[in-house]
């Protein structure tokens, strides 16, 4: 996942690299997602997540389009 100044820069990068455009989130959206996704990553009890747990995190972060479905 890469950082861009604006939508226009994403379009330029996708075109130059012949890559289909994915989804762009604001830095604040990704910060909220990061807190949900990584808050327990250093715990001994963290053994990964199943699909249902991932779906719940995306839902809590407001990411509900097909792009975020497993």
């Amino acid at each position: 996942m890469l950082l861009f100044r604006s939508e226009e820069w994403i379009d330029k990068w996708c075109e130059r690299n012949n890559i289909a455009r994915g989804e762009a989130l604001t830095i604040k959206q990704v910060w909220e997602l990061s807190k949900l996704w990584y808050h327990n990553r250093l715990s001994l009890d963290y053994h990964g997540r199943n699909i249902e747990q991932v779906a719940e995190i995306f839902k809590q972060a407001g990411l509900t389009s097909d792009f975020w479905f497993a």
Partner: protein
Amino acid sequence: MDDTLLWQIRHFVYQHFADTTHPPSVDITAAHFDITTEEAGEYYKELHNRHAFFLDLEPLTVRMANPFSGIPTDFKVHANDKTYYANCAWDMLGIPAALHTDAVIEAVCTESGETVQLEIRDGQITNYQSTNSQLLIHFPLPFARWYDDLTFT
């Protein structure tokens, strides 16, 4: 394979990243758990297969233990008097989230090449310059394909 030891090794790798900013070698992990280097290598490979972290195989090294990167990148995170490297723009925010700490982040915008700085303080993004108001993170692949090619993702 001992499943309890497997997850203890995962935890040790992550804690080593947090403490030192880089991953433990297989030798260091073997010594810590009093097992052979070959055994430690097998545990590393099993954790790689379970997506717990991502290895370079020659030599056997932890390349990514998300959000931490084992190699320098364009995404630097200054926290706890250390400088970490993140694997990507998402992971640069993942490091302060994982460490539960404030951080100053320096990152390079793809395509424009500009460097931007962000600050995480008390769980919020602060020092958020108005010129950064349109900063976006692009996810090129849908979630269902993230593990097809983790380096690209």
